């Protein structure tokens, strides 16, 4: 996670002699890094993914999730030669290429920018694909954050960032999440957490290899931030994209069906 992000640090309004009114009129320097407010997601069809369970969905943060709240950090040391901005630029530009095989991420053609919606097909095993999406909540030169919609496995966000610790560049993914509903919570207990850990470790290693990190290693830290389940959100199960994906035809069939009309 970065402390300094986006444009170069600037002095406070007081330091540069702005009046309170002028300071109010000056846009905050993080403004361009945040997505504009959306109530429900809108998305166009993308090649290579089914594209279901996203349009019309609301975003879900940790407040709206059901399960225990977890913070997971996946960290990789990248040596002293790679600058954090370069690591993040490569990650943003080639984000889908670092995902483990069998999973697809169809983002906007322009890369990862605040407000973009990406469509995902995730391998659940047994040939079943979970179709969902993510929303780019925040993006600057040293970090970017994806937030999940209703029906996704988890409610929360994941921040990808890079920073210098002494001479060493650290690259990390930080997940702050609750399972979205009781079914996902059961799934997380029965191997879901391990699968997720493996997913992000593999992603970081693939990024490290692209950046030329010799023998990239990922260190995982997991903290239970809140052990209470939020039973008032159990009804999130109505939107469960895994269940819905099982009953939705695969993309090829949809295309064939459209062609047959």
């Amino acid at each position, binding site marked *: *996670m*970065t*402390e300094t992000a986006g444009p170069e640090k600037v002095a406070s309004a007081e330091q540069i002699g702005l009046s309170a009114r002028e300071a*109010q009129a000056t846009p905050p320097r993080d*403004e361009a890094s945040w997505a504009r407010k959306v109530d429900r997601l809108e998305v166009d069809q993308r090649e290579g993914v089914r594209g279901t369970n996203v349009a019309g969905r*609301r*975003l879900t*943060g940790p407040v709206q999730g059901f399960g225990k709240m977890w913070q997971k950090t996946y960290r990789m040391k990248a040596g002293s030669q790679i600058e954090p901005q370069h690591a993040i630029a490569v990650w943003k530009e080639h984000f889908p290429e670092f995902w483990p095989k069998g999973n697809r991420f169809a983002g906007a053609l322009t890369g990862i920018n605040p407000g973009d919606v990406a469509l995902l097909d995730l391998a659940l095993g047994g040939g079943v694909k979970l179709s969902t999406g993510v929303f780019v909540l925040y993006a600057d030169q040293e970090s970017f954050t994806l937030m999940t919609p209703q029906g996704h496995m988890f409610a929360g*966000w994941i921040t990808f960032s890079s920073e210098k610790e002494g001479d060493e560049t650290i690259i990390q993914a930080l997940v702050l999440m609750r399972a979205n509903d009781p079914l996902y919570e059961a799934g997380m207990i029965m191997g879901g957490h391990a699968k997720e850990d493996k997913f992000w470790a593999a992603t970081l290693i693939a990024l490290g290899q692209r950046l030329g990190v010799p023998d990239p290693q990922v260190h995982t830290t997991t903290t239970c931030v809140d052990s209470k389940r939020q039973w008032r959100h159990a009804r999130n199960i109505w939107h469960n994209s895994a269940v819905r994906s099982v009953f939705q035809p695969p993309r090829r069939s949809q295309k064939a069906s459209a062609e047959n009309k």
Partner: protein
Amino acid sequence: MSAPAITMDVRRFGDSVAVVDIKGEVTASCEPVLMSAYEAAGGTNKLVLNFAGLEYMNSGGIGMIVTLLVRANRQRQQLAAYGLSDHYREIFELTRLDEAITIYDSEESALDGVVR
């Protein structure tokens, strides 16, 4: 992680309400400052965050506020906020934090609201 460019001062209103004046940048690196302000506000059951001095916040900062919210909920403390500019109020709405942290326009209305 670099040193946090932030200060948080705690003002108490009686035994039950504390206001935390946040000035500077809210990022992941401000966790120690935020948590020590939270400790300083210990013993109250209503915590009001004053964001009028907020200069910058990234997604790590929003994560910190979620963590604070969890702590407050665990202690059965009510969390409220005021002083958010339109930009930061929109971020609270976008991340749906406003569903758990009541947002007020001023300190007066926040204190009225939490005491009621």
